[in-house]
């Protein structure tokens, strides 16, 4: 308590910390409310949602107000927790709060079917998770950062393993925590490089420290590895498609929508804020990794048949796009093109914000489907649009947004990013000029494939005929769930329609990191990141015109058309016994992609022979990296431990020989 209670709660950072404390208290209160399921769902989670809203509000304030810091009375003796709220943290807090509000409101409806005991525990971890993420954003010294970082990982692990009776889920959780921990150690090493020695771990001293390019690069690479492991960067991505689907849907939404962004935040923080120099090849590396990740993710998303797994892979794709944007920013920045760096960074932040909303929306949407049908495998879903229209239409918004279609938000960030790519001729290194158009092509390809994936996802799950008779009893989501989805969908639409305002609002962050801002748009309507004649986009007009034409057409058709409608069976190609199971399955929809990109996968297919009485088809496209990277590592470790095991031989004479040899060796070694 450096500044006594009197001046507490004066700055935004202290409000933010108050929010964190509120969540912590709420979590432990939930533990006490074990008895009453009603209170948990109807009181605790709504309160948590309010907390999220408050955090978002604080973030908005923090973007405008000057940087504020506070030193907490907890932490290590020489190193109490330092918290700091600057524009960057504030932005990510808005992202977190905004998405978490919708998701938590949704959760308050989603968890009503859960027993009180486990639910109380879940509520504890849930709010710890939220608190941890906010603290990561606020931390201003390495220790606080790492503590928050690992609390986040640990609580999310316990959330992932909520349903720990199922071995696959246990395996997923284990893989998740393991990779998270290895990443965390590498972050420790990063801070070890960054620290000024003599145990001063505050970010302030790190900012001031001078470093040689070698050590700066070491820190950057370690950070890239550490944060990449958390963000699901190829090849550290293997945990993500396992862990995200395993968690309860709201948690999946939080993890995909928000938690991954904390890794992006960390990367920005270390690279642009803590490191005193940046080097060009860092950007190229990040760009390359990002593009690989994006393509890899979207390809695998296209061949999934489990809907949550599909979304998880698509998260990997989006992380890839974010990292590519990050790399491009770095390239521009180190090349002295501040303005272009600002543009790219804007695109990146914008995309991060968008992804939080639409990925959250999609995951909670699948959650409702899961509740209504108890089915995650798309091969047994279908036609849900007629049974749960709310979920269906709201999810449609998310699907269109993530597919990058105008006038929704996904398109805006992609548009900005492509604009940035178009500006690369300004660069000085010629080889980059050559390479980057190809990069743009890959981004475009990934975006187009995302559309493919989303058509598959939405079409198979919500459209067509129910592939399983049980689906006819699917029920609509409860009203808090709808409310949550509505919030997220509204976010997608508004972020899509008012980019100019959002970008102006983003300025402090961009200025803080790149020292420059975009030329402020000539009009509030027209989005002109560079200049009016260079490029412009006005989603509002766009939207207005589409709607206008739409209405005109409808009116006109009403006028000229009599409007008689007959219902009948669909065209069956002269083959009357067509039933719902003859629709294209999820595997079928992914098949062309699988055929084109087979090199990335190990395909396991089990096709029935034409005469079998009970024909069954099984197909899976597995991640090849797992087999060519991770299994060898495991094998080597196993071999090493076997060798180590031989030392523990069991015969005492051998042990005596060890001591003897050690003694002799040391004697020889020291007396020389």
């Amino acid at each position, binding site marked *: 308590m450096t500044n006594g209670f009197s001046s507490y709660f004066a700055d935004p950072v202290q409000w933010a910390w108050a929010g964190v404390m509120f969540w912590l208290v709420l979590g432990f209160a939930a533990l006490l409310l074990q008895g009453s399921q009603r209170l948990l769902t109807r009181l605790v989670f709504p309160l948590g949602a309010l907390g999220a809203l408050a955090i978002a509000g604080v973030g908005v304030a923090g973007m405008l107000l000057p940087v504020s810091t506070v030193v907490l009375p907890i932490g290590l003796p020489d190193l109490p927790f330092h918290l700091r709220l600057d524009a960057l943290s504030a932005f990510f807090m808005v992202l977190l709060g905004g998405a978490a509000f919708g998701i938590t409101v949704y959760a308050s409806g989603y968890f009503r079917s859960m027993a009180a005991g486990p639910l109380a525990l879940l509520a504890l971890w849930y709010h710890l998770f939220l608190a941890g993420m906010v603290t990561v954003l606020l931390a201003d010294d390495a220790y606080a950062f790492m503590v928050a970082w690992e609390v986040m990982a640990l609580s999310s692990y316990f959330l992932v393993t909520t349903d720990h009776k199922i071995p696959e889920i246990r395996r997923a959780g284990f893989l998740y925590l393991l990779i998270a921990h290895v990443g965390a150690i590498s972050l420790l090493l990063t801070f070890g490089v960054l620290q000024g020695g003599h145990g001063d771990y505050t970010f302030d001293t790190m900012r001031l420290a001078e470093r040689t390019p070698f050590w700066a690069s070491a820190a950057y690479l370690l950070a890239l590895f550490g944060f990449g492991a958390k963000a699901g960067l190829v090849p550290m991505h293997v945990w993500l498609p396992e862990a995200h689907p395993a968690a309860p849907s709201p948690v999946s939404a939080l993890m995909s929508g928000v938690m991954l962004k904390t890794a992006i935040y960390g990367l920005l923080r270390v690279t642009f804020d803590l490191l005193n120099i940046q080097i060009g090849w860092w950007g190229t590396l990040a760009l390359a990794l990002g593009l690989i990740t994006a393509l890899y993710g979207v390809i695998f998303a296209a061949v999934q048949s489990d809907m949550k797994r599909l979304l998880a892979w698509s998260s990997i794709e989006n992380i890839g796009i974010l990292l590519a944007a990050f790399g491009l920013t770095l390239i521009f920045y180190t090349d002295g093109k501040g303005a272009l760096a600002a543009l790219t960074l804007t695109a990146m932040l914008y995309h991060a914000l968008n992804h939080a909303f639409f990925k959250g929306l999609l995951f909670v949407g699948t959650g409702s489907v899961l509740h209504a049908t108890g089915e995650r495998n798309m091969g047994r879903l*279908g*036609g849900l*649009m007629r049974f749960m229209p709310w979920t269906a239409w709201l999810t449609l918004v998310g699907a269109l947004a993530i*597919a*990058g*279609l*105008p006038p929704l938000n996904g*398109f805006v960030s992609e*548009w900005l990013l*492509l*604009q940035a790519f*178009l500006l690369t*001729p300004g660069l000085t290194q010629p080889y980059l*000029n050559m390479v980057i*158009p*190809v990069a*743009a*092509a890959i981004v*475009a*390809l990934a975006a*187009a*494939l995302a*559309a493919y994936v*989303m*058509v598959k996802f939405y*079409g*198979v799950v919500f*459209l*067509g*005929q129910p592939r399983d008779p049980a689906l006819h009893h699917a029920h609509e989501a409860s009203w808090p769930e709808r409310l949550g989805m509505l919030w997220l969908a509204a976010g997608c639409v508004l972020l899509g329609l008012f980019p100019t305002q959002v970008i102006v609002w983003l300025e402090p962050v961009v200025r803080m990191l790149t020292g420059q801002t975009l030329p402020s748009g000539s009009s509030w309507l*027209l989005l002109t990141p560079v200049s009016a004649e*260079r*490029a*412009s*986009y006005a989603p509002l007009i*766009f939207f207005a015109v589409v709607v206008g*034409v*739409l209405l005109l*057409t409808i009116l006109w*058709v009403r006028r*000229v*058309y*009599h409007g008689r*409608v*007959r*219902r*009948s*069976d*669909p*065209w*069956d*190609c002269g083959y009357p016994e*067509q039933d719902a199971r*003859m*629709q*294209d399955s999820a595997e*079928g*929809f992914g098949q*062309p992609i699988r*055929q084109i990109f087979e090199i990335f996968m190990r395909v396991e297919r089990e096709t029935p022979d034409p005469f079998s009485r009970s024909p069954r088809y099984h197909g899976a496209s597995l991640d090849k990296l797992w087999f060519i990277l991770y299994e060898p590592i495991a094998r080597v470790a196993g071999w090493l431990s076997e060798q180590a095991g031989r030392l523990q031989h069991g015969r005492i004479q051998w042990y005596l020989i060890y001591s003897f040899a050690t003694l002799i060796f040391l004697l020889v070694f020291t007396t020389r």
Partner: protein
Amino acid sequence: MSTGILLQLAQTLLAILLAPLLMGWVNQCRAWLQGRSAPPITQPYRTLKKLFHKDAVIAHHASPLFRFAPYMIFACMALAAGIVPTIANDLPFSPAADVIALVGIFALARVFLALAAMDIGSAFGTLGARREMLVSFLAEPALLMVFFTASLISQSTQLPIIVQTLAHREFAIYPSLAFAAVAFWMISVAENARIPVDNPSTHLELTMIHEAMILEYSARHLALIEWAVALKLFTYSALGVALFLPWGIAAQGDVAALPLALLAMVAKLLLGGAVLAFLETISAKVRLFRAPEFLGTAFLLAVLGMLIHFLLEV
């Protein structure tokens, strides 16, 4: 400004009204080339009229999305037609959406069509949707690359400015545009479901792509979609014209040049339609799994165009 808005409306309406005519013209050329007696050039209008008078037949479990989609698609195409400069070059609306947005519009329409196709849940709709998306995920980035080449030359992604640069600056030869042009041709063939990727006049379920998607549509919905298809063809042609032979288009505020520009436009479109018909007649439809190769080539050509631009023109 007011003239601008007038022009904008005029152009858009013109496009909407003339689009079926272009379709008819292409069909007629094809008929001639194949030695058939051609249907009248206004046949498409008749078809539309007929369709508008039929009763709509809709599958039992069609969802609202199915009935909503045709309007959406039509609206998107109208919007696209509004962006592409045909006769005049100053369109007050064009700042609202540049070439990237244009690609976005096409994608929007496509996604709605695919979703509508999957909505019925008959085996064919989904099949068509899948094939359509397969074609598009290669065609779309390729198209984007073509636009990038053009906009790298003209330092802008605004169509009017691109056209202005290409048409009214001093004449220069851009080798990159040659590649882009070939790529664009292949893309537009694919996007408009023409031979060799798809056959607009087939009704053999197993080979068709576009037709499979609209199999369930009838009457007004079908009419709107057909019209939208015609509009799409028109827009693509106009795009090709605007990008690769823009000369003769009226410059900003130059109202006097409009009639000439109109003539030039009509001439170019007639020519383009004839060429399209010719190429369709001499080539055969490829197997479906050749389509990705075809489009991959287009994609590579487009990227190559960009690289060429960096090599030779920077």
